[in-house]
């Protein structure tokens, strides 16, 4: 494992997180792109107002090649990618026994979880 000459942080961790970010971004853009193509193909007016977010319908929409399904999946992938990056860093810091940074990562994930809980609690 290559170490960071300054801080002893393994270069592998930076690299893994970089690849995760790039992969997540490309996947989300691809899904959003497919959704946009389906929207054009089905002559849906983008300014007519999209359907509300209903998690239970997303997979069904994807299976039936509906634009909204791919769009919601792409949006979820985009929003989840940074949190996945923090989770990957958490694993990396735990493996290295860096408790303070691991706690920081846990706290970030806790704030993200709190935003889900608060938004759901307040309703649309």
């Amino acid at each position, binding site marked *: 494992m290559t170490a960071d000459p300054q801080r002893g942080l393994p270069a592998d961790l930076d*690299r893994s997180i970089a690849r995760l970010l*790039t992969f997540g971004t*490309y996947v989300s853009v691809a899904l959003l792109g497919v*959704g946009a193509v389906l929207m054009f193909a089905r002559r849906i007016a983008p300014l007519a107002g*999209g359907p509300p977010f209903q998690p239970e319908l997303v997979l069904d929409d994807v299976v039936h090649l509906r634009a909204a399904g791919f769009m919601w999946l792409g949006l979820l992938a985009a929003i989840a990618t*940074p949190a996945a990056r923090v989770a990957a860093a958490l694993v990396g810091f735990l493996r290295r026994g860096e408790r303070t940074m691991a706690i920081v*990562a846990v706290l*970030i994930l806790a704030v993200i979880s709190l935003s889900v809980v608060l938004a759901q609690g307040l309703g649309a």
Partner: protein
Amino acid sequence: MIDGLILIVGGMAAGLFGSLLGLGGGLLIVPLLTLVFNLPLLTAVGVSLVCVIVTSGASAGVYLERRVANLRLGMVLELFTAVGALAGGLAAFILPENVLELLFAALLVYVAVTMLRGRDPEPEVGEAESDAMAADIAADNSFRASLSGPGYRVRHLGFGAVGSVVAGVTSALLGIGGGLVKVPVMHVVMGVPLRVATATSNLMIGITASASAIIYLLRGGIDPYVASPTAVGVFFGASLGSRIAHRIDVKILRGLFVAILLYTSWQMLQRAFA
């Protein structure tokens, strides 16, 4: 169909401009959606946050791979930007729309003035000074020292935390990445070199924007039909911008951009008082 194409092309233009001038696409997406398409500001901010996440993801990956971004410092500060974004995301649904429009107009004027004044040159650290500092940091086992990097020592972490909260609130209210606050705080206050501050800010944008994007998503503030073509356009515009940036005379572009910002600010003010 035409509206969808305009969203893609508009997104591309915002991504291209933002990338060439190092501002990110968010600053132009909100005016595009509100002033051109007459969408509510909250919807525009929700869409802009998604665009900001998508554009920052790819570039943050590159910065990390090249080891320019400081992962540890970024994670410590993004804890505070996430808290600010959470608060800002909740406040955005309470504040009247014209207040947000006024804030956005003020932000545009601030950016225009900052661009007119130009950036201060980065102070150079001599080689001997850099070596001494590296040895000093290596000998220091404090948490703050563990956040420092090659040739610089992080200082005023408390100010950095406060600045990060402000960046998070601004991002969530106005749909921008928050780099306008984070980069100066890291560079001027915390002593982080500009290149590292910019890369680290870019890394932090993802968590900052996603903390509030979740609130927008679950409270019906993101329209998928608008967000998808716009985000795809911004992504490709930003990618193109990063490839051609070295061939473009940024001085002319900067002047044009300042004019656009001031005009947009005026339009936003008129909308706020309408």
